[in-house]
């Protein structure tokens, strides 16, 4: 297991090189003028277009540009992200905690409710709870995420004024930036509790609720369906019948014998979901003006912010590798037949 994990960690630099080479190669499909347009937002600046191309070496061969970028990287510099208005490494550090916090508020309910509801649907196949979960899943997945986002924003902010957009309200934001407040984790809800500031905690939760609810509704539906089908498969297995024949309580059969084995596809899906959420939930972050990494990554891509896109892609690639690694380790923990090596 240890060797396996170490090997996967060693893969990380290779993945980073692969991803960045790919991005640099793809960017060559766009002319230097188009890439320079990141710095030229108005016709008044057009006279400087050629100088800007020269200044940033945008007309140099791709390997030279990549070499320049690697040289910067060797000095710990991922470049300046024009869209974030800060160095790329700082941008990742600034935007990621918000997304991580949002992800935790999405992932935990999705996992708990999704697995529970999926299990109930399988155990009570073709009964009310199964029909309900199916209808629930189809309705939630059937509607685009942005529509849910807009509806929730309208109802919970426009009407009820419960869940405002952004990450904190004005007063809370000012307080968290004051010397009285210490940032330990950069996760505002946790920092608020560590600082003993309940009102900041409540304020942060109110702001996180809108985007979190949007994504919980959408993402949970898939998990319910996968858990249900996996459980149905397992419930037909001989060992489940044997467990029941042994006279074990139904609760024990379901929770220990059946569900544990049905969790393998759920883990796969959950790891993908977790990494996907961490990599950025663009629509929800945009609709709720939540300052996460996905919103920035999308903006960087649209505006051809090369250092921004490259840094973002490297970061997401690393997350994906780590997410898959975590899933592999969990498989082995849940199913002793799986050996990593």
């Amino acid at each position, binding site marked *: 297991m240890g060797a396996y994990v170490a090997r996967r960690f060693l893969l990380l630099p290779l993945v980073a090189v692969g991803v960045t080479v790919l991005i640099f190669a793809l960017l060559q499909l766009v002319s230097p003028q188009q890439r320079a347009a990141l710095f030229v937002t108005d*016709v008044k600046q057009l006279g400087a277009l050629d100088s800007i191309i020269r200044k940033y070496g945008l007309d140099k061969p791709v390997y030279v540009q990549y070499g320049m970028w690697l040289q910067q990287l060797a000095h710990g510099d991922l470049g300046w992200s024009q869209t974030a208005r800060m160095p790329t490494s700082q941008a990742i550090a600034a935007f990621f905690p918000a997304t991580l916090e949002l992800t935790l508020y999405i992932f935990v309910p999705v996992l708990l409710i999704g697995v529970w509801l999926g299990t109930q649907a399988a155990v009570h196949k073709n009964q009310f709870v199964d029909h309900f979960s199916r209808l629930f899943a189809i309705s939630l997945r059937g509607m685009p995420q942005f529509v849910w986002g807009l509806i929730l924003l309208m109802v919970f902010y426009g009407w009820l004024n419960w869940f405002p957009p952004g990450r904190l309200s004005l007063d809370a934001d000012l307080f968290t930036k004051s010397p009285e407040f210490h940032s330990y984790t950069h996760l505002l809800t946790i920092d608020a509790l560590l600082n003993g500031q309940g009102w900041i905690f409540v304020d942060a939760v109110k702001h996180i609720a809108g985007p979190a609810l949007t994504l919980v509704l959408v993402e949970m539906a898939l998990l319910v369906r996968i858990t249900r089908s996996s459980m149905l498969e397992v419930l037909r297995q001989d060992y489940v019948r044997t467990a029941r024949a042994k006279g074990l309580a139904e609760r024990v059969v379901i929770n220990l014998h059946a569900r544990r084995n049905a969790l393998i596809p759920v883990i796969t899906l959950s790891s993908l979901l977790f990494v996907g959420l961490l990599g950025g939930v663009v629509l929800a972050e945009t609709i709720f003006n939540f300052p996460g990494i996905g919103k920035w990554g999308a903006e960087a891509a649209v505006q051809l912010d090369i250092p921004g896109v490259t840094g973002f892609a490297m970061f997401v690639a690393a997350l994906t590798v780590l997410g898959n690694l975590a899933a592999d380790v969990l498989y082995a923990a849940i199913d002793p037949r799986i050996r990593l090596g």
Partner: protein
Amino acid sequence: MKAHRHLAVVLILALSLTLAAFTGVVQGQAVKNPDTFVYQSAGDPESLDPAWEYDTTSAATILWNIYETLIFFRGGRTDLYDPMLATEVPSLQNGGISADGKTFTFKIRQGVKFHDGTTMTPDDVKYSLLRIMLTDRDGGPSWLLLAPILGFDVQSTRDEKGNLIPDIFDRSDRAIQVQGNNVVITLAKPYGAFLSIMANWSPVSSQKFVVANGGWDGQKATMAKFNNLPKPDQMALFDKADGTGPFKLERWDRGTKTVTLIRNDNYWRAPARLRRLVLQNVEEFGPRRLALQNGDADMIALGTVANLPAVQGLPGVRVLDDLPSLGNSPALFMTYNIDSEGNTDIGSGKLDGNGIPPNFFSDIHVRRAFAYLVDRQTYIDQAYRGKGRVANGPIPFGMLGYAARGKWYEVSKDKAIAEFKEAWGGQVWDKGFKFTLSFNTGNVARQTLTQMVKEAVEGLNPKFKIDTRGITWSTYLGLYPKHKLPMFALGWAADYPDPDNFTTPFMHSTGSFSAGQGYKNPEVDRLIEQAGKEPDPKKREQAYLKLQELAYQDIPTIYIRYSVGTLVLRSWVKGWYNNPMFPEGYEYAYRFAKGQ
């Protein structure tokens, strides 16, 4: 899939109705955050450094809230000034402007403190001007001082190869002198618009503060090190500020894209009434609009005029539209010398019904025919909900030289046909033509314009074909200066409120647009240069009226619309007034207050 779409439509309708129903909940709302003004914008500042910023949001954030200029616009006027950091506005009468119109003397106000408590001196004024001129980044604002002070042949501190011009420091240093308590600026040539530039582009910062934060020390020997820096944060005032204005920079949180300014209680005039300004970037209009409705925002950026109905009629919200604004957008430009190399936009490259020759638009009859076909009022009604004024030349409504009764081409199919029949010795009408008319993707108003032109032209003769094509903004900017686009739509907003800032880009042979079009009329160039250096407003006006007449006669460009501004704010915001140089609306929050 179809059912899915229907469901989406029904939901959106339901949303709209729900929204309409919900708007009533704010009636009688108490003033939220009574001493704090919150503005939600569609953009965020690129830099807070006055020597770097050249975008609307950055400028609005720092000018005139943090930094102040030597003189300032009087009320809503752009042609009259009040003293600000100077104690009087230079004029011929008070001796502030020399008889030859080249030397401007600014008497610097005494006892003004920077935000860090140090006293502003004339040396700080000189340093601030030199810093804007000589740090000169590519695509930055330096030319706005370099050109009028050192001459319009000096648009940059570097030559065409990117090398620093050796004597640029000495020339700048000689042109701006501190004499006792005065700062004396001597221009290479007289320039009538110089005061309007100083009202906008003379923000004063503290030299000591800049140097203490690693910035340029004002010396010749170190200038090259600070010239054309590649990254904005390498400038000392990127995220710091030390001005003299009514508000101090409290914080720029780039993570949440929020700038917070706090009242300067040691301001040289009475302190501002508001304690704090919060300037937030909220990219999507939906959340901005809801924040306004709930009173969480006091003023928001509307984005496009298509959003206007969503804010009209909201209780407690004022919508001010048709505000004077110094913009000429869009205009339709025709290229006289299209680059045909690998250019599919001109089809076969010949007048054979499947293309156009590269010099197609050099024929005045072609240009006039197009002018007779563009129904500008209908276009403004359709694309801008009637917001804007029909344009008849480069100089916008309300500015010196604006031709209120300037001639333009009425909408007439018959006249257009007659012109097309005369064009290219009758070949245009007989053989027809085909070319591509481009707009920048995402700009719905410009897309509408290209579609209207296409329909009007193709309706005249079945042999006339125009393809419309959306291309990205970046591609657009890359193509038109290189003469690649046969016809294109673009616009211009004022850097400073003077007709020279419009006639030069639109009509001078070196102008931003006309150079790309290949338009050159020596008489036009002469008149622009003459009007630029003429100190007498009446003589200038005559020159500009003549220029607008030439714009009508030569018609290299079809002028369509003079922009108007729209502002959306809570009724509880008091003290706001419009000046066309305040495009965002909060540029001069000094007078703002909140109350029922």
